[in-house]
């Protein structure tokens, strides 16, 4: 079968029918009964800036509470490399989240690709900055860092949800995943500012793990929320 023939079969399947007039009348009637002015969502950049500020504030507040020990121990070179990368990654995730809650948003580059590149860039920066390959108490020092990161991701996720509550995610689980990633980046921010364990394995595994674990928790929460809403209907 040639492509033209494939096209012909698909074209033949087109349904030229219009919807039933009764359906349209019913829809018009329902809308008429509840029509009132609404305030459209603000531009995407306002949301992106807001989400970035929320995430950065959570990271700074968490580190202020726990202490900026990690920041003090870092060399200026490490600071100049790690924190701008985190900030860029945070901006990418914030922008992706805004696109996820506004239906029909334009995407010049795939969101998954951008987030993937951000993750790879962060891992590369960590691998380049932390060259201490000595490993000591890998699990016992790692678990508290993972939990600290996740603990700080919770307020970031909650405030982000408050900020975006008027949005509508056409793919709620995907939006939950991205929200979790963004909150996880805030958690990593706290760890980089506070944690003084500069072993490469520790940072690469336990600090970085906060992001996917937080993302998975975000997707799980969104999935549960969708299921509950469906049951309530």
């Amino acid at each position, binding site marked *: 079968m040639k492509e033209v023939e494939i096209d012909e079969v698909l074209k033949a399947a087109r349904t030229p029918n219009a919807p039933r007039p009764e359906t349209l009348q019913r829809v018009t009637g329902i809308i008429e009964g509840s029509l009132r002015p609404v305030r459209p969502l603000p531009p995407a950049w306002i949301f992106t800036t807001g989400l970035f500020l929320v995430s950065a504030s959570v990271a700074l507040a968490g580190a202020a509470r726990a202490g900026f020990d990690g920041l003090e121990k870092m060399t200026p070179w490490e600071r100049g490399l790690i924190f701008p990368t985190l900030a860029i990654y945070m901006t990418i995730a914030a922008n992706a989240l805004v696109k996820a809650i506004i239906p029909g948003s334009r995407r010049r580059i795939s969101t998954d690709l951008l987030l993937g590149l951000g993750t790879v860039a962060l891992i590369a920066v960590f691998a380049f900055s932390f060259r201490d390959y000595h490993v000591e108490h890998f699990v016992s020092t790692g678990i508290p860092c993972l939990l600290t990161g996740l603990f700080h991701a919770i307020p970031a996720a909650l405030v982000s949800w408050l900020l975006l509550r008027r949005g509508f995610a056409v*793919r709620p689980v995907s939006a939950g995943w991205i929200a979790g990633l963004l909150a996880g980046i805030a958690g990593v921010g706290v760890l980089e500012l506070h944690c003084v364990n500069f072993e490469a394995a520790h940072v690469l595994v336990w600090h970085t793990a906060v992001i996917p674990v937080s993302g998975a928790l975000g997707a799980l929460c969104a999935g549960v929320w969708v299921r509950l809403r469906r049951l309530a209907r």
Partner: protein
Amino acid sequence: MTTSGGLYDDVRAGKQPSGAIHRMQPDDNIEKLMVRYQQGDFAAASALIDCVSPQLYRFFAAQSFSRADADDLLQETWLRIHKVRHTWRPGEPALPWFYAIARHIRVDHYRKSVRTATGERRLEAIAVSHPTPPPASDQAEQVAALLAPLSAAEREVLEMLKIAGMSLEEVAGATSSSVGSVKQKAHRAYKKLRKTFSVGQKGGRP
């Protein structure tokens, strides 16, 4: 195998597919109506329903092939559109926004029907008799057989482009993906279909 005259060429050249013939009014009219709809203007809401509904109807009919289903989904979509109308921002194209919500409703409906079908299969196992499902139309069967080798995402893109007559940008907006990704899926779909049919012809099948 020739590649001329088909969607493949349009997609490869980055053009609007030749099948995109269903647009009733230019986007800017729809956007002006949307602004007034958000301001609470009933005449604008009514005009918008008349203007966009045929496109949305075709979008649903392209996959469900049932008039009743398409009507139900259209109504559900409008109720959702009405609920979240504030999420459209003036200055943004409106059609991808409509299609994104319509696709959400369609996916939701599909999941619901899968759950119902699973439940029915469980019941059938214990029931003495059960009703047979209504037979699908020849046309629906033909398209289903044609698109069977494709993945769900590829099938969806081809249906939107060729059966619903949507543009690449509209499909990208509706599927929350980039235009490049839509082109890639359409390209893969055609490649797969060509391969399937060339194997079928070698094996003596039509």
